[in-house]
């Protein structure tokens, strides 16, 4: 087939592209993914029974705000990385900011605590399985986001995969926070960050093969 024939073939009957195709795709993926992750948590873990009391604690809201802020940054990065030639600009800083903030907060808490109390502030009661659960709950979101991204055009595949993984991890942490009873900044700074990093790392590894187009 000659190039002119290919051009004619591609142009023939090409319909109008639906506007906001990218936004729709991600809205669909986030909607279904969040549904899947929420369902998974509801079946496996359930919401903490004392939720109505927990909402009165300021730390409960910090625990939601931290993954929510990361989710915002990761969503921006994911959308930008899905379009050829769009630069990340200051988005990496927007992703780093909430992590640095929680680490600073954790350092202040630890320095202000008696040495004997510090291990409990860091490890809480659930450190053994918290990162594992955040990573596991992220699977439905992660799958949906990879589907969305695969239908777009990422050109930096490892970075794009990591970004989709971080977005899934942040969404998963946000939903898991409704079950988890840990409320110290050092715990969030270590185990939540670790849990969200797992899908991000997996994304960086599988991106180059899964997201190719």
């Amino acid at each position: 087939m000659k190039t002119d024939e290919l051009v004619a073939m591609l142009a023939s009957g090409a319909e109008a592209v639906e506007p906001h195709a990218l936004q729709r795709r991600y809205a669909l993926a986030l909607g279904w993914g969040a549904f899947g992750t929420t369902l998974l948590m509801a079946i496996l873990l359930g919401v903490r029974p004392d939720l109505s009391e927990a909402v009165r604690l300021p730390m409960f809201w910090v625990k939601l705000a931290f993954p929510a802020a990361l989710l915002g940054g990761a969503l921006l990065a994911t959308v930008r990385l899905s379009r050829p030639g769009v630069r990340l600009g200051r988005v990496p800083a927007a992703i780093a900011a909430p992590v640095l903030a929680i680490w600073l907060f954790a350092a202040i808490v630890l320095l202000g605590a008696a040495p004997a109390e510090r291990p409990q502030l860091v490890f809480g009661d659930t450190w053994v399985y918290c990162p594992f659960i955040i990573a596991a709950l992220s699977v439905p979101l992660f799958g949906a986001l990879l589907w969305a991204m695969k239908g777009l055009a990422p050109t930096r595949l490892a970075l794009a995969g990591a970004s989709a993984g971080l977005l899934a991890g942040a969404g998963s942490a946000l939903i898991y926070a409704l079950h988890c009873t840990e409320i110290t900044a050092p715990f969030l700074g270590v185990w939540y960050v670790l849990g969200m990093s797992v899908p991000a790392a997996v994304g960086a590894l599988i991106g180059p093969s899964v997201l190719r187009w």
Partner: protein
Amino acid sequence: MSASEDRLWDLLVRGLAGDTATYHAFLKELSAHLRAFLRGRLSRLPDEVEDLVQETLLAVHNQRHTYDAGQPLTVWIHAIARYKLVDLLRRRAGRDALNDPLDDELEVFAASDTDADDARRDLAKLLEQLPDRQRLPIIHMKLHGMSVVEAARITGMSEAAVKVGVHRGLKALAAMIRGER
């Protein structure tokens, strides 16, 4: 923005809105620019140029929904052409060294070359390997210029299935070129 970029932008935006004649003109002019651009970067692999021009055109078409009219067209096209170029080099990795194909200069539209060599890979042959549900809609609609309704009637498929068949078939074609199937 250069005059040719301005012109191409206008053709593409109208094409994306459903004007097939201007979309055809866009792809035709783009192919000449891509040819000149890729010839400059594949000077040691002149035989690969036309294949890569075709692969890049197919990518531009399949991924055209990722273009945002506010983005400079050069940047978008350059990123796609570069991605496909790097992909080709990875596939050939170890077989040849290449001369700095990875510069960041956005000069996709600086030159134009309408003098096409023959492609080595025949997309028509790849097309024949697609399953009927993708091959037939592409043949009727994209090669014979039928409407969705006509293609649906002749194949006995639903109109939705015809559209999906064209869309998936062109993506499958790109996957075959990458060597994934």
